[in-house]
């Protein structure tokens, strides 16, 4: 099926490596809507909503940011830290959204598992339901994410 020009432009931007290494799509061969649909189904199975996940991520990032790079204890099992990097990264969707290159790392102390996300990841999940394509360095696996950030 032919794609609309807007969609083509968006997919080209997502594949472009101007902003994010390997592009937001990584080496994923699926098209954008397939990626989004698959992850939406995955989080539905986990009983979560994308807004809920994004809100939790934002909350953890805010807590971590107050630590200025140090580990901050959240609840019993979770530690988070946020790390700022120079520059801003724009959202590839056609609206003016730029995020700090802040990377939050969450560590589950019992299992030692960690997961990291950038401020842009939060925005992409909240507004676009996009967890990035497989092979992208900032791809987030919904199951893994939910397991860590919603742990008790």
């Amino acid at each position, binding site marked *: *099926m*032919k*794609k*609309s*020009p*807007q969609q083509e432009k968006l997919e080209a931007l997502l594949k472009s490596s101007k902003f994010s290494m390997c592009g937001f799509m990584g080496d994923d061969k699926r098209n954008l*809507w397939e990626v989004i*649909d698959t992850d939406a*189904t995955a989080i539905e199975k986990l009983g979560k909503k994308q807004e809920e996940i994004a809100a939790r991520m934002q909350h953890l990032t805010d807590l971590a940011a107050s630590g200025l790079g140090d580990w901050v204890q959240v609840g019993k099992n979770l530690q988070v830290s946020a790390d700022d990097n120079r520059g801003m990264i724009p959202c590839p969707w056609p609206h003016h959204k730029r995020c700090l290159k802040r990377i939050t790392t969450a560590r589950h102390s019992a299992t030692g598992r960690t997961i990291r996300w950038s401020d842009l990841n939060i925005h992409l999940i909240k507004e676009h339901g996009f967890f990035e394509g497989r092979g992208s360095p900032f791809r987030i696996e919904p199951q893994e994410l939910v397991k860590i950030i919603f742990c008790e």
Partner: protein
Amino acid sequence: MTLSSHMIHLMVILFASIFTDNILLARFLGMCSFLAVSRQVKTAVGLGLAVVFVMTCTVALDWLAYRYILQPYQIEYFRFILFIVIIAAFVQFIEMVIERYSPVLYQNLGIFLPLITVNCAILGASLFMVIREYTLLEGIFFGLGSGIGWMLAIVAMAGIREKLTHARIPKGLQGPGITLIIAGLMALAFIGFTGVLSGG
């Protein structure tokens, strides 16, 4: 034929091509872009306007080419090639003009123009014009009506699909599946107009 009855005849052609003989929903021409570019009303309106404009102009150009080039030499069987070449050249030309003189219009509409070259509804309208032996004026009204009819259908579809984003659609039917079902239902509704007006 008096002037007013002539006017009425043209109006009949116009409205017939919009409603009873809708090129998209009664003839199923131009389905590809109809399915692909009907996600949002805004883009559907853009593409629809481009189709209205191009269809009206190309029907007129093709009529002239048919009447003054193909008919005199009795090579009507070349109309497919000639019409397509004329449509392609016209779209290219219009794209250049719009880009040069109206960047805003170009941004809104220009990106749809290349899509239109391969829209079978445009060629279809020119071929119907030949089959039905329209005069130039009739042809123009027919092209205009067909374009408006196509736009009406795609905008209606985009409106429905925008609402559909809030609906729970079974997974297997999402995307093209549900769109085709809706197109079928819309076509049924339009077929209800059959016989109300007869433009041919």
